[in-house]
């Protein structure tokens, strides 16, 4: 479903601020894979997701999404195959537009936009139903500006928007990191539910080792722009925080100094 082949990404090339954010990264994801992606600050996780999504072009290597060579496709064209949720709850929705307008934009992902009405009354019923499944009381707030919703509500809405048209690949970049622990847990549970109901191929970045171990069928760890661990199947099921830390140490030759992950 996703095939990343030896990609490099260099920021500010040729200047004193040159930063090689990705070094020869390759990943093969099968349909239905749910990868949790973990690594310290600056390891290159967001850069990897942004390169897959086309926010940045890559400097070397290729990216293939669902059989399409996406290496040179612009962001908005790749978006027809992708669902994305970002760390910042402000990023995924248009805050000055009302809830149903946001959902209507997402429902038309992958279709050319024309002169038909932006929202039909038939859709509203669907939205109401989908929102009532979120259990956040949003089904009666279709006409509320999204900017007035809480961070957790906005992330739940963004998740719904990312999956309302089944994407070939769902990219989640620390989408619960800005939420309080209780809300984060609810959004994560909702994430699990949407992924399993729709059998979505997913890559989820998390800063929390426990979450990375608990969710998904495969765990990838990045360090300094490289993939250093790729654990799947039975082996993934048996992982503990301690064993993961030990394996990080032997793979990277460094002590794991990522306090956020240790503390949680």
């Amino acid at each position: 479903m996703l095939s990343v082949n030896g990609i490099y990404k260099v920021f500010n090339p040729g200047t004193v601020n040159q930063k090689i954010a990705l070094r020869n990264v390759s990943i093969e994801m099968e349909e239905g894979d749910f990868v949790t992606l973990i690594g310290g600050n600056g390891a290159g996780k967001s850069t990897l997701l942004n390169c897959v999504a086309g926010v940045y072009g890559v400097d070397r290597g290729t990216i293939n999404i669902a059989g399409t060579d996406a290496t040179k496709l612009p962001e908005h064209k790749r978006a027809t195959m992708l669902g994305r949720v970002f760390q910042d709850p402000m990023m995924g929705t248009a805050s000055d537009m009302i809830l149903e307008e946001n959902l209507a934009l997402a429902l038309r992902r992958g279709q050319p936009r024309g002169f038909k009405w932006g929202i039909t009354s038939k859709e509203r019923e669907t939205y109401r139903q989908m929102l009532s499944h979120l259990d956040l009381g949003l089904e009666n707030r279709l006409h509320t500006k999204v900017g007035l919703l809480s961070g957790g509500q906005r992330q739940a809405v963004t998740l719904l928007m990312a999956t309302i048209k089944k994407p070939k690949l769902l990219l989640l970049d620390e989408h619960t990191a800005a939420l309080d622990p209780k809300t984060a847990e609810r959004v994560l549970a909702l994430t699990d539910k949407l992924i399993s109901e729709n059998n979505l191929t997913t890559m989820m970045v998390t800063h929390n080792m426990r979450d990375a171990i608990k969710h998904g069928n495969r765990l990838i760890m990045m360090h300094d722009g490289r993939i250093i661990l790729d654990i799947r199947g039975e082996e993934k099921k048996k992982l503990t925080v301690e064993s993961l830390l030990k394996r990080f140490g032997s793979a990277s030759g460094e002590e794991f100094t990522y306090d956020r992950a240790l503390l949680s």
Partner: protein
Amino acid sequence: MLDIIKGAVSLGLLWSVMTIGVYITYRVLDIADLTVEGSIAMGAAIAAQAITNGINPYIATGISLLGGMAAGLVTGLLHTKLKIPALLSGILTMIALYSINLRILGKASLSLLRMETVYTPFERLGLDSSWAIIALGLISVIIVICFLYWFFGTEIGCAIRATGNNPNMVRAQGINTNTMIIIGLVISNGLVALSGALISQNQTFADVQMGTGSIVIGLASVIIGEVLFGKRNFFLRLVSLAMGAITYRIIIALVLKMGMHSNDLKLFTAITVAVALALPIIKAYINPPKIAIEEGE
């Protein structure tokens, strides 16, 4: 006094079309587009030259609309394809249009005295000249408002509104934000040029200088409309823009009547807009916002 108000209303209606154009870039797209200074004069120049050459005034006005759209397209391409900042793209087109407008006019100013204009048919119906302007101005504003109300409710229109709000999200939904920005600039400058064509036929001349300061007049009208007439839904917001443009003209007529020199008008308008834009800061200074502590869900 009544005549002054009547004159102000008629002029305000003609400038409403321009104000709505400015609103599309300034509020909907969140871009301060200076192209308008050139495209309003361009609309006037095209209409005057076409009418002088015996073209039907309505067709001439239509050509002005197309000319303005082309100007918007140029700014849009400079901004989206060549990645020149929006403000600078607008300035470049504006400057280029100054030369182009001189070419169109052939000289600095062109008179339309005693020529047939878009207002002539209304005068033939027995309306005096300012009622003729009010009638046609009203028709134009109503058509423009209805068109935009429909347009911004369509799929493309929604995508344009979202682009001004959060372009990242719009791209993530598979929409080419560059195209949306270009469409918005094209429509906006088309309306501004249309307004210029109507204004020049009202004042019976086109002048290459007539765009100078028009962006500030447009902004003043947008802000007056929003402050005085609220903005509940999109339709009323468009209506409030027209009300803002009319109110602006009435204010100007009154301060002139009270003895302000017409040379000082632009200074007066600029100060008004600066104060209006600073209102949120002034308000916060007088009445500091209480810190809201967010509760968990």
